């Protein structure tokens, strides 16, 4: 078996006395695009900075392409990074920015120029080579930063929320391009984001980070369909998954998973799309609820319900069949669409 592109073993890091990473174990296969997803303050960027060597580890080892680089300085790790702010040199032209890494490594100027041009062409910014960062739009700077990262053919690409400063349309476009670029290069990439859509669209695998620990590492499909914890379940998906006590008042229809021990403290979770709304006088079943408010998002509408004697629930309905505010309805969810979690630990419940 070939060495993993990137391997973190029990990595911890701290800012002063505040622990930021608490024992991260992570393996990224060569050519894989791993997205690190988490809320702000979870330590996502610190993962990248530790890999890059910009922050020291307090424990654990970092391996890049089979080499233990834990104590190597950043320049010796052969990684390149795209910063959230892009970190372009304002006094250098685009060409000089891209060629910077080559020139400080004493690549002949003509060669550096040529490779800078090739890198710029591969991300579609060859027309900008003579400009300065101050003359570029956000999207153009983004492309230049990407070109600078890939000109040196590093072992691992680290991308720190590179799309977060772009407007939505551009972000969607760059997301697609980034994925295409990755597939073309076959490079090992670690991409940090707090945007769950970005993670689902881009990633080969997603690592969900929470308070410096990895909550789950899995494919986007598995993250969506089998979230390992209530935290993952609620963080991925918008609006977030409904989470209710399993003991009621809301009971899914159909047959419960076998061995669901009623004695245990459990929570049930289901996505807004899993909820079926019926008229209050419909005999087919479901729990009685009142519509608090309705948000329409194009073809979909989200109805915020209050269950009789209980917690709020969000349901997704087609916009043309949305209920009105204050309407009495029946809400039904089938057990097949329900995730069960332990209330205390938040971990996924697996019937034994």
């Amino acid at each position: 078996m070939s060495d993993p592109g990137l391997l973190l073993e029990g990595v911890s890091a701290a800012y002063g006395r505040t622990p930021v990473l608490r024992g991260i174990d992570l393996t990224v296969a060569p050519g894989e695009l791993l997205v690190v997803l988490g809320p702000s303050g979870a330590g996502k960027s610190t993962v990248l900075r530790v890999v890059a060597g910009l922050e020291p580890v307090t424990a654990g080892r970092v391996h890049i392409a089979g080499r233990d680089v834990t104590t190597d300085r950043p320049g010796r790790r052969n990684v390149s990074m795209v910063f959230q702010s892009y970190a372009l040199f304002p006094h250098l032209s685009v060409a000089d920015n891209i060629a910077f890494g080559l020139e400080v490594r004493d690549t002949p100027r003509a060669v550096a120029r040529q490779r800078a041009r090739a890198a710029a062409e591969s991300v579609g910014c060859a027309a900008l080579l003579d400009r300065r960062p101050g003359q570029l739009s956000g999207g153009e700077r983004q492309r230049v930063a990407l070109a600078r990262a890939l000109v040196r053919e590093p072992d691992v690409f680290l991308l720190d929320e590179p799309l977060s400063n772009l407007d939505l349309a551009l972000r969607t476009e760059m997301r697609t391009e980034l994925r295409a670029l990755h597939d073309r290069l076959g490079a090992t990439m670690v991409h940090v984001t707090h945007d769950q859509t970005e993670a689902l669209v881009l990633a080969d695998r997603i690592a969900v980070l929470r308070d410096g620990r990895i909550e789950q590492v899995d494919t986007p499909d598995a993250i969506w369909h089998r979230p390992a914890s209530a935290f993952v379940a609620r963080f991925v998906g918008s609006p977030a998954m409904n989470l209710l006590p399993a003991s009621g008042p809301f009971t899914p229809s159909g047959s419960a998973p076998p061995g669901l021990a009623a004695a245990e403290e459990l929570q049930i979770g289901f996505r807004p799309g899993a909820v079926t709304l019926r008229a209050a006088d419909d005999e087919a079943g479901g729990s009685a609820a009142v519509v608090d408010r309705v948000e329409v998002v194009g073809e979909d509408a989200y109805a915020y319900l209050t269950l009789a004697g209980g917690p709020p629930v969000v349901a997704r309905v087609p916009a043309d069949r949305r209920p009105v505010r204050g309407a009495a309805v029946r809400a039904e969810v089938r057990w097949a669409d329900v995730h069960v979690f332990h209330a205390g630990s938040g971990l996924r419940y697996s019937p034994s």
Partner: protein
Amino acid sequence: MRPDSRSRRQLVMMLMPYLIGLLVLVLLPAVITLALAFTEYDLLRPPRWAGLANFSELIDDPIFRVALTNSLVFALVAVPLRVLFALGLALLLHRRALGVGSARSAAMLPTAVPEIAYGLLWLWLLNPLYGPINQVLRTGGENGLTMLGRTPPQWLTDPTDARAAIIAMSLFTMGETFVVLLAARRALPRDVYEMAALEDATGWDVFRRVTLPLMAPVLGLLLVRDAVQSLHFTFVPALVVTDGGPPPYATTYLSLFVYRNGFEYLRYGYAAAATLVMILLTVAAVVVQWRLIRRYRAFYRL
């Protein structure tokens, strides 16, 4: 927001003390001085119109020529050295580390000392016999010679050594330049330096390709400022430490020349004419450097 007439009046009133001070203490004397440059005036009898006589005398005055040369040489050597010295200290002390706070205060301290006291201190430091500087230079040597068997510098009696001493004195009063550069360095974005670290840029490459170009506009401004002030830096040291000597007028700079003529020889008109030359020199230096900076900024679009 446009200030209404009331807040405008308030602004004017609050500026008044400064404006009056500027007018009475700076502008008025300056204008009078310029006018006096064309007169013969001994501070006792009323000034008499002299036309351009003062200026033609300046041209033929060998002492003035020496003072002019001394001032220009001083500016050419001391101004870049001062800014370099301040830049070095700022780059050394911009990080947070143990003792950096005290080190910054220490770098600032000589600038805070009153000028005369500072001059007297150097008079002791530079004393060829018992001054600490030459005592250090003499360590390891015999018969009052340095380790290399040479006579230690005669700071107060040798013309070249005395000029060097004045430049050395001026180096340590770069506190304001240091503070500005410290702030400028700390304002530079951190991620740009992290970027450079990821590319394994050496310290020299980082300085040459990143720090220096990014700080260049500030450095340019400070060079202009120092060049303007350099004609004054020399006054107290030359007056207190070297007394304009050693012969022949080795440390008589324009400022001291003006002072001597105005207040010791009571040739106020003549001193005013020399002052006018100083001002013209200053303006010329500012214009040249300002153009260079503007060109630099336009080039980098900073």
